[in-house]
């Protein structure tokens, strides 16, 4: 290979690695609860449901529950709207919104379904 080509490929590789390292955090929109407290705009936080108890407030028009994030912190999530299907069975929950008065007010809730491609009847399974 010509020396010119080697240098060219080397430069491209360095640029790619530089981009990858500096873009590391932009590749994911999810932040921890600690980070969410410091960011002023709308953020996406994710966690697992702490307890099976969900509190319905406002005559069933709002949902309140606790999430545990990856750093082990808990947060109270308040969502004004109908409870999404499968919220309790979700493997993880993503809340989009912002912190207000020590509670996370969510404009939107997203759920991660369990990654199982098994029949819900359970009878056709064999691995």
């Amino acid at each position, binding site marked *: 290979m010509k020396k010119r080509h080697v240098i060219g490929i080397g430069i*491209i590789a360095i640029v790619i690695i530089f981009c990858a390292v500096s873009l590391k955090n*932009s*590749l*994911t*929109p*999810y932040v921890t609860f600690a980070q969410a407290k410091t960011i002023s705009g709308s953020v*996406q936080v*994710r966690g697992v449901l702490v307890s099976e108890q969900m509190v319905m407030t406002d005559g069933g028009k709002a949902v309140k529950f606790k999430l545990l994030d*990856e750093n082990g912190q808990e947060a109270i999530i308040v969502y004004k709207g109908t409870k*999404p299907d*499968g919220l309790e*069975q979700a493997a*993880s929950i*993503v809340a*989009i919104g912002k912190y207000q008065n020590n509670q996370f007010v969510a404009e*939107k*809730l*997203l*759920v*991660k*379904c*369990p*990654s*199982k*491609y*098994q*029949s*819900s*009847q359970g009878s*056709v*399974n*064999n*691995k």
Partner: protein
Amino acid sequence: MVKIALGLWISGVVYAVFSMVPAVEGLGYLVRIAFFHIPVAWVAVLAFFLSAGWSVQYLRTREIQYDRKSAVAAALGLLFCLLATISGAIFAKLTWGAYWNWDPRQTTIFILLLIYGAYLVLRASIQDEEERARISAVYALLSSLTVPFLVFIIPRFYFSLHPEPVLNKVGKLEMNVVMLYVLLAAVGACTVLFWQLFECIVHNKQRSV
């Protein structure tokens, strides 16, 4: 002949998806979208790798037929990638609750669309056939190096709403057997469809030369 067989194969797969695939825990019958989404995504990756392979052939032999094949493969790959993105967004709305939230999987496939979209723009901007072939070949080759990262490696480093890959970290398949066979049939049908589209477009291009 192949086209008739393909038509029957696709019909068979669609029938199987609607009648044989059981409802799944959590997703229920929505899992059917996966039987379109997964095949088109796999074929896009295959197309991008084929494009790179023909790029290498072009750079070695300088025969224009390889440039033609590489370009058609990349363009079809972009099309299938777009189909994967759109079906993914629909799947996301129905299962996660939103069409698009810049989930890492969505961001990486978006980047992939940009990379190969740029490939087409690059080709359109060069008039001289040989120069275009040479530069496209290098670009297609470099672009294909990003594919394993964007599709397989990077998404596994981040939390994502996207379901775990079918081949999970342990290496075992966590999938109902009937579903697995139907999925393999769907992937096969999609691959043959790609092959037929590819041959058709390449022949048309050769005829118009």
